[in-house]
């Protein structure tokens, strides 16, 4: 195998696949990247068996072939090479010679035989979405995933294609975020998956490289083909992301979203975020909640921690309902506010034990459960 490649293209390609390495010391090959050279491109593949990524970069292939190399080390070498022209030359014994300007590296590789291939599949459900839209939707919900590994069902984002709607949901049992969009969903294609958190973060990182992203899935696995036509640094075709899905039944989220609206206030997103953020500066692990107090046209936000002090913020709002007060974990308020982009949001409350609900004019809902102080 032998090819010539632009250093920055090569580095960019490696950066796409870099994060996916196996943690299992029993399979050293999983910390390698599979490099396959053919025609006028090389493809780079990494996998940890649950998740795999492949991208293609243009290259001047002199001699087709394959090899695998430790991906982290390779990426840091390529980034530092002195010259933009890089030549890669693999001997049959998998020793790779990497040269650029006056630098030459010899790196020991492993043959491709041991490298587990990424599964490809054909007869699954398939949808095509806008990358920018999927990215925004993921951002609006993914913070609500559960971090608690014992609740693996909740360690991810729920993708639901059903009844003319595409919805993304995440919840940790105390809050839930839902973003949906109208979409044509043929009955035979309707279905859902739970995408693992790690895949969600890789997918979010890879999106916005081009216009479309195609998703294929069945009940055990899924794949994303992410067009890379907007990326000018050597990527060609699309990036292929393969992932297992979390198997299990996602909780019935519709049931926990309040149907009725009691008090609704319109808020300026950034302003509310700033106030809550400031108030939360006095919070501690021991006292991690902010109190919202609504009175006529006034929203007051207070926080206090016994060993530090207290904070008081107030903002004018349009409100004429009864006085009410409710406390929340400040993170639960700030997370959706940070993730959204709309300037205007709606917040619905009822009393100190009922959930608070954030909404936007597009179909975003975030339900957060209050903290009760005894």
């Amino acid at each position, binding site marked *: 195998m032998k090819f010539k490649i632009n250093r920055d293209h090569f580095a960019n390609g490696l950066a796409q696949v870099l994060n996916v390495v196996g943690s299992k010391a029993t399979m050293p090959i999983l910390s390698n990247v599979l490099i396959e050279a053919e025609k006028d491109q090389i493809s780079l593949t990494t996998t940890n068996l649950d998740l795999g990524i492949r991208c293609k970069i243009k290259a001047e292939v002199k001699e087709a072939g394959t090899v695998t190399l430790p991906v982290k080390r390779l990426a840091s070498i390529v980034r530092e090479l002195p010259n933009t022209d890089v030549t890669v030359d693999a001997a049959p014994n998998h020793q790779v010679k990497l040269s650029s300007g006056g630098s030459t590296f010899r790196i020991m590789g492993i043959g491709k035989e041991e490298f587990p291939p990424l599964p490809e599949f054909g007869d699954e459900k398939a949808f095509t979405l806008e990358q920018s839209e999927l990215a925004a939707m993921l951002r609006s919900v993914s913070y609500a995933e559960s971090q608690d590994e014992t609740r693996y069902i909740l360690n991810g984002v729920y993708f639901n294609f059903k009844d003319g709607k595409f919805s993304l949901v995440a919840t940790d049992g*105390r809050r839930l975020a839902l973003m949906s969009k109208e979409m044509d969903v043929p009955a035979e294609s309707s279905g859902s998956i739970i995408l693992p958190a790690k895949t969600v973060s890789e997918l979010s990182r890879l999106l916005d490289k081009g216009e479309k992203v195609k998703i294929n899935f069945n009940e055990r696995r899924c794949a994303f083909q992410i067009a890379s036509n907007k990326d000018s640094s050597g990527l060609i075709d699309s990036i292929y992301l393969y992932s297992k899905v979390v198997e299990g039944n996602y909780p019935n989220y519709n049931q926990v979203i309040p149907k009725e609206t009691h008090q609704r206030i319109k808020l300026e997103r950034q302003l509310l975020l700033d106030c809550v953020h400031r108030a939360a500066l006095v919070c501690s692990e021991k006292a991690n909640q902010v109190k919202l107090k609504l009175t006529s046209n006034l929203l007051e936000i207070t926080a206090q921690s016994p060993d530090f002090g207290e904070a008081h913020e107030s903002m004018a709002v349009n409100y004429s309902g009864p006085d009410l007060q409710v406390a929340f974990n400040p993170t639960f308020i700030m997370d959706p506010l940070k993730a959204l982009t709309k300037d205007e949001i709606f917040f619905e409350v009822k009393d100190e034990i009922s959930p608070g609900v954030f909404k936007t004019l597009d179909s975003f809902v975030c339900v957060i459960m209050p903290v009760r*102080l*005894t």
Partner: protein
Amino acid sequence: MPSIRILPDRVANQIAAGEVVERPQAVIKELVENALDAGATRVEVEFSHGGRSMMRVEDNGCGMSREDALLCLERHATSKIIEADDLNRLGSYGFRGEALPSIASVSRFTLQTRPQGSESGTEVLVNGGRLLHVRDCGRPVGTRIEVAQLFHPVPARRKFLKTDQTEAAHIVQCVRLYALACPGVSFTLIEDGRVLFRSPECPRLLDRVGEIFGRHFTADLVPIEVREGDMVLRGLIGKPVAARPTRHEMISFINGRPVDSRTVNYAIVESYHEYIAKGRYPMAFLFLEIDPAAVDVNVHPAKREVRFRSEPQVRSFIIRAILQRLRELGQAASPLLGAQTEPARQAEAGGVQPPGSAPVAGGAAEAAGPGGQAQGMQPAPAATVSALDAAGRVIKVPAFSAGLEAAAADRLPGAGVSSATPQQPIPSPRQAAPVLTAWRFIGLAQGSLALFEAPGGLVVLDRRSALERIWYERLLAQHGTGALAVQRLLLPSTLELDPVASALVKDRLGFVQAHGFELVEFGRNFFRIEAVPDWMEPGDAVDFIRELAGALRDGRFQGRDERVWHEEYARLASAKAVRLSQRAGEAEMLGLLRDLFLTRAPLTSPQGRATYFELSQGELARRLQI
């Protein structure tokens, strides 16, 4: 029927010997006590065949004149008390005047003794209570008593003796106790011609403990000295991390007398209750000094038991004294850390010190009273980090335990001891956080461990145990203030319990709710968890309620003492509150240490596991031979 006769003394003595001299060890005990009562500074004990064939105790005490040497073998001959009331002022081990005649009546008994100022000594030989001869003998000032062929006049008694090994073990333990009781007396113990131990006069109890139990023991002991009214508790107590699997290292003395007092033992164990796990025992070498009139030593023929006039008073004094010390230890926590500790404990120290005594702990500048005599008043030498020298300058006390103990020993006996204020509970410390400026976080290891470099060496912290301790106290405190944040759940968890557990949980629903759970029964033995304490991961709630039900079933929430319940709850809950970050930065880890050292018992987790250990520079140098 034969007529009533007064028993000849010899027979009476043999009967009394049945009580006083149960076994060879009892002979040794009586003879050693006599030697100590005679003011000896050197005691040598020898025995062979478990004491069965020969026992010898030799001392350099005051000795006896020929007249006394004969008199001491008479029943109720004692130089130690004159009238019954003297029993209440007892300052000696002996008081009955029974020991020697009893022993002499059941053995072949040779007494050689010479008092100060006399040219020659006296030798008295008695066999089975019959005087065989009295004659002059040459010997240095002091007394030597040899007891051979124990029980040969009463062969029945011989049958009750255990194996030589067992009898020897009792003798050894007995001599150890007296050696501990009197560190200032040199002791030698010889078994079958072989020296078992030889301990010179020791300046401090700690040295004696080292001589007897081994040097490695001493690093885990800290001095204690607390006075309250006319009671004084002094000696050494073990750090909670050095808890032992048996009670063997829990030794107490009352007015210098080794005794097995249930009251004292109970108080010691109770003091450590929060610090060490069930089934493990603290080390303690404690001397309780108390008005002799307040103890009755004359309740057991071998004086093994004592009775206090006021048991509760003694018990609560001991518990308060030890707890106070343990808390101080907690704050000083680490000698390593100590090297960096701020005037941390002043507030607390102020609360328990007698007025007029200057606090010294680190608060050097303010405490710089005239001269350095204040050092003696410091209740917790181990907590003392910098002390004052005679000129009032701050001097560094060596950071590690050895040095700290040395500092403790420098204290003059009787120089102001701290006094625990009676009645008042020890004020809970609200001390300043320790300064950890010169500390460096090295990294995480083995999942739960965190490694630090401190000014005095290396510290290995078990993050899980540390967090459990922090959370345990946080949860307890939270309950005290009633400020509890309850996170309502969007997705309630459901839980099915077996009928017994279900009934137990329903019984205690109020308790469970008071700790932040909303449990709703929605069918036979089915519960829905609708809210959890805000620190708890909702996913942990089901397991936790099950564990709680298990603890209920084990009867761990049975007593009437609510405090015990809350502790039990906090112990269970703290294990659930711990979340270990996979990556941790220096600031976070130093913060964890700081939080740990602010707890009352930073040395151990609520389960009694150690939270950290230290490798001092000295230790590192020794191990690496640098």
